[in-house]
């Protein structure tokens, strides 16, 4: 019989290779679906790659899509490091989008508008994240379920607003009024959609890394996440640390919404996020909760999503393959993670 045996130490090479192994396994598993759809595996993945990373415009499109995923990936990473189980990045993103759109629609000088949009979006995301955090530390309410359910609450608030009082009077669709033109995030490369928010997202990753690994707060977050009892004995106010981690996490998820409003959609609609908040969980796990790993993983998943449309047009394989890849990658990574803590031994 095979059984799992705890490892004393995780070899360093495993930490780097496991996500790659998980991704390769995912692509192999999903190639079965491509075959089922009657297309060539190399063809399909080839088109997918070319359309997402094959030329500079494609790369900018992929990066634009990666930006919100980097933010939600960082949000989940930070929260999970403190073992605050924030499944609510989706709702926090929506809250951030709404708040920034609301601020962006007020006429004021562009740079000021952008700054206030970012602040409002981050604050709104943090406020949403605060609810499950306070419920957990004050009333011991399970954060997994409460943060998950809040996604639906925020979504319905958004729907109620854009179908009701906040509906754009000049549009037949349920969408919010657009932000001021001057409040839109500047485009970095002429002729592309690559906006300032993408740069901010990429720069946020090392900042979060610094926060977690080089500051006293980060130390407290790590210790609280790994062993709250030892943290408390060591003089750490565990509840405070969890609330701070939740606020920061919510703020990061809120910034994902700010980028989408300020740099991509310029208004709020019901499908402003195709599940970026949930993708954040996939990304954080694949990145092994390392903020620096979030960027490449987010770009990879963004490339899959961007490339899937082109693949569908070229080969007839439904573009929903990208959703399957995301789910499979998360499950494959979870199994792979098992091998960092355990190894398989044959037992008599």
């Amino acid at each position, binding site marked *: 019989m095979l059984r799992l045996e705890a490892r004393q130490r995780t070899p360093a090479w495993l930490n780097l290779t496991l996500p790659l192994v998980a991704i390769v396994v995912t692509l192999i598993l999903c190639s079965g679906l491509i075959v089922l759809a009657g297309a060539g595996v190399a063809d399909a993945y080839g088109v997918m790659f070319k359309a997402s990373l094959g030329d500079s415009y494609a790369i900018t499109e992929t990066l634009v899509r990666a930006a919100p995923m980097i933010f939600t990936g960082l949000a989940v990473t930070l929260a999970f490091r403190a073992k605050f189980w924030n499944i609510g990045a989706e709702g926090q993103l929506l809250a951030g989008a709404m708040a920034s759109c609301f601020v962006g629609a007020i006429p004021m000088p562009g740079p000021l508008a952008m700054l206030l949009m970012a602040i409002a979006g981050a604050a709104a995301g943090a406020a949403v994240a605060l609810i499950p955090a306070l419920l957990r530390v004050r009333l011991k309410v399970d954060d997994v379920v*409460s943060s998950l359910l809040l996604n639906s609450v925020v979504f319905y608030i958004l729907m109620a607003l854009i179908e009701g009082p906040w509906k754009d009077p000049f549009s037949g669709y349920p969408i919010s009024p657009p932000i001021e033109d001057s409040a839109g995030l500047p485009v970095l490369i002429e002729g592309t959609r690559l906006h300032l928010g993408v740069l901010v997202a990429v720069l946020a990753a090392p900042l979060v890394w610094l926060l977690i690994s080089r500051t006293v707060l980060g130390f407290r977050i790590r210790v609280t996440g790994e062993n709250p009892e030892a943290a408390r004995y060591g003089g750490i106010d565990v509840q405070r640390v969890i609330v701070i981690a939740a606020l920061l996490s919510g703020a990061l998820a809120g910034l994902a919404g700010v980028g989408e409003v300020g740099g991509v959609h310029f208004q709020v609609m019901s499908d402003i996020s195709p599940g970026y908040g949930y993708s954040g969980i*996939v990304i954080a796990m694949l990145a092994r909760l390392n903020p620096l790993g979030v960027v490449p993983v987010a770009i990879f998943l963004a490339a899959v999503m961007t490339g899937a449309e082109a693949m569908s047009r070229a080969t007839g394989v439904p573009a929903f393959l990208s959703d399957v890849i995301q789910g499979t990658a998360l499950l494959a990574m979870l*199994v792979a993670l098992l091998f960092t803590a355990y190894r398989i031994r044959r037992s008599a």
Partner: protein
Amino acid sequence: MSAVLEQVFQVGFLAAIIRIATPLAFATLGEMFSERAGVLNLGIEGIMLLAAMAGFTGAYFSGSLWVGVLAAVAAGALMGALHALFTVVLGLSQHVCGIGVTLFSSGLAYFLYRLIFGQQSVPPSIKGFQPVPIPILSDIPVLGPAVFNQFTLVYMAILAIPLAAFILYRTPWGLSVRMVGENPRAADSAGVSVMATRFQAVVLGGALMGLAGSFLVMAQFNAFTFGVVSGRGWVAIALVVFGRWDPWRSAGAALLFAFVDALQLRLQAAGLGHIPYEAFLMLPFVLTIVAMAFMSRNAVAPSALLKPFRREER
């Protein structure tokens, strides 16, 4: 106001409540079995969707609705087994796996549906279940036509509630389920296999979620659309908490939610929608969060929920 009251006591309104409640009751019971055994199944949203897809496809090609139901149940049970493999056998974190199962199975459902049916301007549909009146009982005024002139799946849901309660509270297996959800070590030392019991409960839960999915495509919409589940899985998770992990209360919670939902639809139809309908839709979530805040003091959630169990820990 009297117009509203008239609406409420219409036969059609009562029947609508029952029909809205049916898939929720199945899903809620499914989630409840899983959670009573100590396994949170956040895969429910995706499992229901995949089951709905499988059910619709099965019914569409076989021409038999019951083949469709079987396909949905099988798909649900299979995804339940997948979740159990990850969380029970491998002991991986339940919430992350649940999100993974939801992402995976909803992606798979969309993919396979598009693969099988292509992109059509008018989505294919089937002739769904027809109401089966129960002799005599269906003649009771108001209640009769509302409750006893329903789809067979509705009757199954009504019977599933006492059956679930019986299994959970009166059978050795049900006791094992409750024990592995409360104190797996105690079950283990009494010779009960924690892993097998949890696995069975999660698979049974998945099968019930499959039934829920089948009802949506074969009795409610008679077609598969991408929004066919649209958060009903999350609602079920809320209802389990709201129903305090008890079959009767959970089913009651489903009925209550269905009432509010049906009322909301009627009010809209009657042009009485002063309050945005989203307010009603978010109600179960808000109420559940509030309920959790009050309940946690005398914690009623299964003690071992979210906790993997491994033997020989040292």
